[in-house]
């Protein structure tokens, strides 16, 4: 699949599964986009550091806009409104995010708050699960805690009525970072 096809498929699948994909052309755009979408959703942020988070200056952008950014401690992510985590791969076929989440903070930030923001470099989108598994097998020992996330947490346990946000996030934003990042409508 060509790059653009991967991005288009990833985006449309992820949105079909209830995530919102927000393209950011450059890392520098991440901060302002975050400020914009997170403003109405509470000020407490649990942020997990990563190279991309650093280069993009996410922490400074959020703090500058008045958010309360938490990065550590025993209460990390427990009371946060939003968790921000960088994922390692996207899967075009199902609109899925993948990462080695062995690091505890990564997991807590992605699981506990009502809103989860996933940062994903666009060039990390792969066609299917097999390609992603291959990528990890090449890297070395299989990760301790490997996770695939597709859309927000959901249940249909009461009268089969689809309800989002049970135990995990009820909102999943995917910031797709890269020159060619774009949504299914080619924006």
């Amino acid at each position: 699949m060509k790059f653009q096809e991967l991005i288009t498929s990833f985006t449309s699948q992820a949105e079909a599964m209830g995530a919102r994909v927000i393209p950011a052309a450059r890392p520098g755009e991440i901060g302002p986009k975050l400020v914009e979408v997170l403003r109405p959703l509470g000020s407490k942020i649990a942020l997990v550091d990563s190279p991309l988070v650093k280069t993009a200056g996410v922490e400074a952008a959020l703090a500058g806009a008045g958010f309360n950014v938490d990065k550590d401690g025993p209460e990390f992510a427990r009371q946060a409104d939003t968790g921000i985590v960088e994922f390692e791969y996207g899967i075009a076929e199902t609109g899925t995010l993948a990462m080695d989440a062995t690091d505890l903070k990564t997991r807590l930030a992605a699981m506990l708050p009502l809103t989860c923001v996933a940062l994903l470099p666009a060039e990390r989108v792969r066609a299917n699960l097999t390609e992603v598994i291959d990528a990890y097998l090449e890297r070395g020992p299989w990760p301790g805690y490997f996770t695939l996330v597709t859309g927000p947490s959901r249940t249909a346990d009461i009268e089969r009525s689809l309800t989002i946000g049970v135990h995990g996030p009820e909102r999943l934003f995917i910031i797709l970072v890269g020159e060619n990042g774009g949504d299914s409508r080619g924006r």
Partner: protein
Amino acid sequence: MAGKEFKQRIHRALNNDSLRGALGRFADSYIVSREQVYAGRDFAALRERIAAIKSDAAGHYEELADRFTRAVEARGGKVFRAGDAAAAREYIYQVAKEHGVTDIVKSKSFASEEIHLNEFLQERGINPYETDLAEWILQLMPGERPSHMVMPAIHLPKEEVARVFSRYLGEPVEPDIKNMVRIARRELRKKFLTAGMGISGANIAVAETGTIVLCTNEGNARLTTTVPPVHVAIVGYEKLVPSIKDIVPILEALPRSGTAQPITSYVTMITGPVPAWRGEGEGIKELHVVLLDNGRTRMAADPVFKEALQCIRCASCTNVCPVFQLVSGQVYGYIYNGGIGSVLTAFFNSLEDAVDPQSLCIGCRRCAEVCPAKINIPDLVLKLRERVVTKQGLSSGYRIALHGIVAKPKLMHTLLRAASRLQGPVTHGQPLIRHLPLFFSNLTSGRSLPAIAKEPLRDRVKRLEARTGRPRLKAAFYSGCVIDFAYPEIGEAVYKVLGREGVQVTFPQGQACCGAPAVYAGDRETAVKLAKQNITALEEARADVVVTACPTCAVALKKDFPELLAGEPAWEERARALAKKVKDFTELVHELTGGQGKKVKQAKKSGSRAVKVTYHDSCHFKRHLGLDQVARQVLKEQPGVELVEMQESDRCCGFGGSYSIKYPEISAPILERKLKNITESGAEVVAADCPGCVLQLRGGLDQKGSSIKVKHTAEVLAALENLQGGGNSK
């Protein structure tokens, strides 16, 4: 006969409107959404892969368990191999005790239910909290049974859930689903953050890496395995697969078959202990994997039932099961539901516990069509039935009917002839067939039964066997009991149509019941006897083909006979030779007419309008013989016939031979739905290729006073003019 308590459960389920409504609505939409989610995918290839992986694994559990153990231990985790439920419970309890655990959060696990872990822990002062929303709701409702394997609380209306939550919180809760989900999040979050241990199951376990794979939509398994400092995973041996790549096809099928989703919201793969918050600071979690045997290795060593270990617990077999849809998992009981559930129960619990659940299967084979692990569920159920009979013997009614009558064809035929003389004039709703092997009692709710023919087919054939000069083909007609004694006119139609095509048809008088009633009752002994008698009789005919117009008989002749006689080489060979000659009537007509029909010759002869005919797919005809399209083609080519499709044409009619006698309360609503679909099709005639279906449908339409006529395909082909006249009562 089913136990009294079991019958009561059926009765309660059938009378529970919200249960039936919810399951019915789900099942209807499931069929459509499953199709959609598999669109463009090669399901046949996918299930082959899964079946191959799982069946191979089932042949190597010991080796896989060793590899899995080594891999987990290499990472610092512990593996405990539990031989049975008691060992597993005790081990888990000891781990909890060692850590001074009082509260446990659990994500959905069949294995933990199978070993009755919750009760065990509670009795010892430890509180297990189910965190899957449906499981939690059921936990708050003592005595309530799960109704479905994947959606255990599907039967509860939101008002009921609101009452349960109100009781739990001690404050009024509105029946607003969104809000109730919030409440569950809030309440269970407290448990997640304070519990000393998390218990999960596993959807897959990878031997190569020591990985356990968990699929959830709610995200509770992630929290269960992340927040508490100790994680115990209960993993049945059947979850083991060799390598990490093997998870791909399973992950492709499980959510699609389960809930018609391309993937669950979360797929979590845990390999060894991982960091966790431990009291004072970040540390490494303690990981215990309990590998549960509890009957699984015994099953793997069983050449017949090993296949059931391929199951990936998607529940799609129950979603399409016409019986499950009516009675739900609350009736099957013992954790695992449906046909596959009865097989698993026989090994994980006991054969006795499986006796009633297995008897619910009507044998329609829909489940086998959709199973992503390619398990032949209905055949396994029959094998299980056979074992039940071997162990417990037949119930007295069956014994008299099968051993005393069916196994003695001469006696049976004499009795049938006598019965035809004794019976009074045909009256609506009057049970008239009492002695056909299919009828052991006279319950006939919702359906009239046909009279036993004054003159069975076997006595009429002398007049029918016209000598044609140089026949194209010599056929021996194997009529089966229903055509012989209830509907000889179907047999006459077969003679007429085949005669028209230049086939010389004979009727071997030594033929007897095909033995299907015995096979379906688990009575192998009678089935073997009948197989031999029929083989002898049909060999004597020296025909080119053996034609039958009953798909159940065709399956018996083609598939059951060689299997039944597998232990006796000489007989087996004869059975196989016979099996090769057997041909369904409609299939033969299709071949003889080369797909041309008689359209040209007869077309528009009378200039009369076309008759609207709808086609009912008989279960064995479609799913065993695979002739559903052949029949449609043959009918379409028949002049004067306009084929109109009904909804759900391949749904069972509810007959299932003696099933409709054993479980009339289940058979009746299945028939009801079929009749509704037939009526709504606007057809004047329903055609079917199975005399059993003809019997069931005629009976049902007759009771309704419907003018729609039911015809065997042979009758449609034999005499179109009769389609517009005549009634159903014959």
